[in-house]
């Protein structure tokens, strides 16, 4: 951090520096993205539902859901769901959730080849989060085959694969599974005790969580761990004041690690001795909120850092002065919501959507 180029700090007319959260500009930015994503996003085409989640849930945080056609969104999201043809197919070991985009979804007109369905846990989480955000009644989703087939993805160690054809297993997909079960109000899709054991095995010697056992503590992984535990009901409301031994994870070490991630420039870093980055204001800030410890954040410092990452085009960038992207924009909005910015919807931190969407009003 010490050897970072300080040029942007000296530029008085730096376009990214602003003294206030520019809500109108952010809404215009998301509206533009809703209409058409520029071609650099094609490399993320497979995760189009995730990109849509950033736009739709982002507009909800900004109190601007009226800018989109909710019926069109519902129709499009539902069109990406995978359905088993019959009971036999439901038991074939595949996962019947949502496809991330058309390029993993194939409809066969004849029975030449059995193309496996490519539905994915992260896409399924994003699909349900969008549907909840636009007020769709999730009891209308075919949750039985979704929940039942999701069990195929849980591994003997409690972790989850995101897709039945095989991929890396880590805490991200434990979180997706827990959020899916929570939104569907149906936990038959996962073994919570096993998932909890896996999460515990990911807590590192310094108190944070790595994505897999043995990995370095990381802000995103720590969010996945703590949010999952919260969703599964393993975190007591007043966890900070309780004796450490009553909890399954080491809370004092976790609290200290999380607070240490606020760097001298006010922003949150994802790992020890790394530069601060917009998104960790949510990942780590969210952990602190769940623990009831967000009162310990230096809010003025954090706000100041985030504003240096606010783009003149709307949206937020990863680092001060660089170009904005959807991912960092969304978590920038989330961070300002945590900071109780005026005219922003409050968050349900553990689900990654607004509190209103989570309640289902």
């Amino acid at each position: 951090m010490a050897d970072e180029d300080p040029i942007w700090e000296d530029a008085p007319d730096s376009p990214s520096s602003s003294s206030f959260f520019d809500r109108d500009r952010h809404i215009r930015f998301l509206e533009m993205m809703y209409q058409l994503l520029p071609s650099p996003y094609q490399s993320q085409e497979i995760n189009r539902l995730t990109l849509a989640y950033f736009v739709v849930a982002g507009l909800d945080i900004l109190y601007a859901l009226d800018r989109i056609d909710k019926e069109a969104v519902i129709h499009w999201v539902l069109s990406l769901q995978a359905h088993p043809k019959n009971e036999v197919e439901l038991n074939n070991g595949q996962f019947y959730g949502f496809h991330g985009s058309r390029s993993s979804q194939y409809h066969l007109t004849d029975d030449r080849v059995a193309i496996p369905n490519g539905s994915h846990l992260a896409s399924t989480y994003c699909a349900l989060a969008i549907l909840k955000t636009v007020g769709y009644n999730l009891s209308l989703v075919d949750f039985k085959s979704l929940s039942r087939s999701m069990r195929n993805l849980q591994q003997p160690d409690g972790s989850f694969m995101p897709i039945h054809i095989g991929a890396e297993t880590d805490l991200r997909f434990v979180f997706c599974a827990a959020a899916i079960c929570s939104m569907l109000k149906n936990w038959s899709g996962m073994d919570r005790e096993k998932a909890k054991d896996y999460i515990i095995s990911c807590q590192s010697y310094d108190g944070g969580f790595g994505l897999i056992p043995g990995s370095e503590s990381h802000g995103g992984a720590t969010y996945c761990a703590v949010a999952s535990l919260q969703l599964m009901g393993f975190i007591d409301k007043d966890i900070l004041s309780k004796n450490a031994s009553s909890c399954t994870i080491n809370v004092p070490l976790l609290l200290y690690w999380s607070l240490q991630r606020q760097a001298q420039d006010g922003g949150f870093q994802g790992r020890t001795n790394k530069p601060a980055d917009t998104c960790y204001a949510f990942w780590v800030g969210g952990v602190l909120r769940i623990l009831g410890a967000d009162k310990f954040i230096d809010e003025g410092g954090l706000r100041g850092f985030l504003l240096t990452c606010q783009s003149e085009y709307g949206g937020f960038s990863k680092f001060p002065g660089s170009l904005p992207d959807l991912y960092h924009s969304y978590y920038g909005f989330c961070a300002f919501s945590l900071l109780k910015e005026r005219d922003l919807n409050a968050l349900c931190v553990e689900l990654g959507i607004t509190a209103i969407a989570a309640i289902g009003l």
Partner: protein
Amino acid sequence: MDREAPDQRPPIPISKRTEWADVTPIPQDDGPNPVVAIAYTDEFRETMDYFRAVYLADERSPRALQLTTEAIHLNAGNYTVWQFRRLILDTLCVDLHEELDFVGLLARDNTKNYQIWHHRRWVAEKLGTNATSNELQFTEEIFSEDAKNYHAWSHRQWVLQALGGWEDELAYCDKLLQEDIFNNSAWNQRYFVVTKSPVLGGLEAMRDSEVAYAVKAILAKPENESPWRYLRGLYKDEVQSLVKDPRVASVCLDVLMNKRDCVHALNMVLDLLINGYQPSKTLENSIDALCLDSGLSNSGLTERVCSVLQVVDPIRANYWKWRKSGVTVEGSNGKELAG
């Protein structure tokens, strides 16, 4: 195959290539009212249209393999393309060493893509222990550019656990830490090796020398959080042993006497005190020397440590204040939230 770097792809559109004349591309059906449509480039659209055609025909041929190469260069996160590529590799019995070369080139340009690393693991798993040294070396090449690459570290830990190669790992961690003592990934790897390596005898056997290693690093750069957390981690579930190890209190005292960058030292002292450590007069004096407010001298040492932390670590002032209140409330029992 696959020798070309991504920016040297043949400029000829697939539809103009004779070897593809017999294939009818299948356009993407986005349906009515698509949300967040993407402005695809012509090259992207055409490549994926042809991919759809070979995928639906389940064509496992050399040209289909080449097509997946092109699709992956445009879209390395597409797991459907990767999965189909693996089917083709299996069917054609392709030399997997060539595949490693291809993944190696891709990973160097695209070091933060999960699918590439998953694919590399799939190949290495098939090659078995023959791949061990090559895979360790590959991650070292990645670390020479980015010593904190999370994917490469995960891959390396997997290689060690699945294929072996632990012998020189502690020395490698030391090398990286000598290059950059602030590299927390290397500290984490060191902890991984010390606790998991089958050739070192485990944490118990290693603790003594590792405490010495951490202390040396702390004295060199007391502001470096990593070795402090490492030292604490060596006694993760044995806090009483931490309290009893005289080197821990001693390194704190050394740092405090120099009155510089003392947040981590003070936090460690706090940890010791709430776990029953009986401070020496020298340690107490060194804390008092940091107390700017002489009115504090009447409170207990633990509270004084928290007060100093409130001043020297203003970002977390509310936290230290809360810690102090916990000490006050529960101090008579000698127990607070044990770290």
